[in-house]
């Protein structure tokens, strides 16, 4: 044995080898600036449709087979788009709605965030440790945003499917698409027992069903939160008055417009078809239905007073 050979590392140290890596200049990677003011739901739809364009041509062309790896990436992309939507919506709501703000006041925030972030970005930091990778987290968020003890049946219904997508996501994130035992239990062990350890490789049309669940989930969530948040303003200001809000609906559009717009612009679909109804249509409809309740309450109070 020569000296040179004696100084060499044993072969089994080097079963794999790697090349030189350059330092990552991550700052330049985030090259796309924030989009101009668009609603959370519009941003989600744009993201979702951009993901769709990556795989839908496989559905249109009968001869093309979609790579299984792409399917996993699409699911992850969708989860990311949904989470981004939920965070953006929450952040804005904390900023404009006193009741939602009050609900989140108790939550702890990291010292770094408190020290360095702008005030309007603080709520985003608040949610950074929360993941929306299962239905329970979404329900919790709904209850906080809407000051509700229960989740409406409509949301419950779509969350069942959402949870299934979350199970698939878990396989894609942690096991490169292979179905693990826990996820098989989540999806229904009886029917999934035979495909444990199989890899997620759907057809493009199946993947678009998953995409459809996610889009419908966001549309449903968006509609329900908008409704509940507006109803809560009336409840706290008129129906069972508390001093939660620092302002009050005046029921004249001239005075209420800017306040209503803050809600409207966060929830309305403007960039997709069909578009949401116009701001004034929604305002007048909101006023008509809520004034009826307020008037009925006043009439009942007057009657009770007369009776007493």
């Amino acid at each position, binding site marked *: 044995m020569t000296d040179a050979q004696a100084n060499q590392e044993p072969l089994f140290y080097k079963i794999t080898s790697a090349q030189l890596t350059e330092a990552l200049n991550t700052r330049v990677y985030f090259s796309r600036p924030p989009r101009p003011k668009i609603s959370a739901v519009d941003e989600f*739809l744009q993201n*979702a*449709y*951009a*993901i*769709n*364009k990556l795989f*839908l*041509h496989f*559905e*249109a062309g009968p001869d093309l087979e979609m790579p299984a790896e792409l399917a996993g990436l699409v699911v992850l992309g969708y989860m990311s788009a949904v989470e981004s939507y939920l965070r953006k919506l929450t952040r804005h709501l904390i900023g404009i709605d006193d009741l939602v703000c009050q609900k989140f006041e108790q939550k702890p925030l990291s010292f770094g965030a408190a020290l360095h972030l702008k005030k309007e970005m603080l709520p985003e930091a608040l949610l950074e440790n929360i993941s929306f990778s299962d239905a329970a987290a979404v329900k919790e968020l709904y209850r906080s945003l809407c000051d509700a003890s*229960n989740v*409406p*049946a*409509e949301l*419950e*219904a*779509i969350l069942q499917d959402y949870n299934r997508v979350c199970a698939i996501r878990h396989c894609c994130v942690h096991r490169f698409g292979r179905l693990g035992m826990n996820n098989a239990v989540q999806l229904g062990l009886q029917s999934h027992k035979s495909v444990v350890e199989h890899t997620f490789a759907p057809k493009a*049309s199946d993947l*678009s*069903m998953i*995409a*459809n669940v996610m*889009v*419908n*989930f966001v549309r*449903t969530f968006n509609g329900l939160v908008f409704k509940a948040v507006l109803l809560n303003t009336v409840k706290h200001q008129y129906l069972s008055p508390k001093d939660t809000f620092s302002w009050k609906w005046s029921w004249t559009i001239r005075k209420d417009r800017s306040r209503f717009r803050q809600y409207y612009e966060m929830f309305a679909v403007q960039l*997709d*078809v*069909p578009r949401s109804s116009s701001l004034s249509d929604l305002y007048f409809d909101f006023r008509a239905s809520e004034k009826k309740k307020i008037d009925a309450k006043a009439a009942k109070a007057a009657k009770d007073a007369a009776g007493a």
Partner: protein
Amino acid sequence: MSAQVANQNDAASSDFELRADYIEEAVLENGTVTGDIYDQVHVALIDKTMCLVVGPRGCGKTHMMRYTWLKAIENKTLPLAIYVSFNRYLRLEPFLKTKVNALSYFQTWVLCRILHAMQDVAERLELWNFNAPAAVGLSSNDIDALISRLEKAATLTSAEERNANLISLESVGIAINALRVAAGRSRCVLLLDDAALTLTPEYLIEFFDVIRSLKSRTVAPKCSVYPGTTEYGPRFHARQEAHIIPVWLPVEDSHYLATMMAIGDKRFGLEAQKISEAARKQLAYAAFGMPRAYLSLLRDNATASGQQQQTLNKSIQQHRDGILAEYASLATKVPQFKTLVAKGRELFDAIIDVMRTANVNLIDERQLLIGIERPDFTPLTERMVKLLIEAGLLYEHPEVSHGGPDRTYRRFTPHIAALMAVRAFSGRSRGQSAAAIVDFLNSKPAKHPIRRKLNTLLSDKSLAEIRIDLPACQKCGTRRVNENQKFCHNCGAQLSDSSLFSRLMTLTFGQVPGLTPFLRSSMTKQGIKTIGDLLALDDPGTELRKTKYIGVQRSSKILVAVQAYIDEFLT
């Protein structure tokens, strides 16, 4: 003629009710023909099996169900019968476009309708201690509120949501059995009318899931559906799980004339005698197995003045035009079927043409059958033919094979009124008279059907043009590639279809076939221009009565007629 009979006949000519939904019970009981096919239907409706009662509009499905229901109320030895109609299903269609939990709303509605009907039965049987809504922990008002809310396609309030949660398949199943025990019957049949739900296939699948779950040792569901539908969803296999009972009486049946004539006699009595026997027989053939059509033709002929033969021919032509208009209206209702409906009409015309030529050349036998080679059918042409069968324009006979699987024919008989309207049975030396036509139709059938290939009936160009007219992407205008597509493959946007029901609400009465000009003008004078206007009125009668000369009687008559057409149009 006794005074009583005269009065009855008078009533028959002025207010004669053709739709079984609105027939008075006494008429239902005494005016029902028994014998052959209708007896078989009645027996099937009270037996222990699950069954599908199959037939096009107006062939007597509702009549037989209501008749069976009435008999079962009176006769303690029969099973308990609960009659429920689902003809308002389309009102829930908007949910499919707006709510992710549309199917659970639909299930609640189906079960509420059953509970509502159970309460009706309990009251009829004077079971005052039994309360169907209470059996699931609710009140009658709760059930009515849920039904009314869901039929407006409005979101349930949280209180209603809680009520809806109490109504489950289990709780309703238990309630049905409780009612059965209270009534002292050993079994129960659920007579589920208008269960075809043709315009909402999503609901059809859910419906049959519900029905399968309600089926038990003591509960046998019976559903009325249209012919042509063969797909009831992945979990319900019609041929294995249910007994299929045709109600549509084929004209080839040896008792066809006798049965139809008996129906006319029972319902019309002496009034029908005004029309000659030969003419009545011709009308019976022209009705193509549909009692409702026969009664309507009889009424038109009995009340018309003028030459009988002319009236007869005119009424048959009008009848044919009516059914073709009804069929064509499908393209208005479901725009996706526009091409299918148009090509189906071409096929139907071609069949009529071929059959006319065949009959004109025949001497002492008739030809009512056309056989089309089975392998010719693709999923699209299959769907086209289904629409014709569903509309009652083609009757499909059981399949026969002539040597090997390649020579399998599907055999059809086209609507007789359409053949009569082109004088298929009165050609050459045969006269135009009703007697001559009936004689010809009574002659022995030709030994073999006319055999054709689909591409000899329709040109290759026409066949190539058959397609489902899918709406383009609303965002970028790209055509869709298939029916089940969720997103546009070009721009990625979610594809959304407008609600069928909402669109139908904007139709004017001019687009609804079958309404008389008088009914149309009465409505439009009051500013009730669209179907939606009519359904939105809380009290449409009051609005109508604002017109001169229209009082309580007339307004209600107009409304019943319009409502009936609209209900039919919306199913």
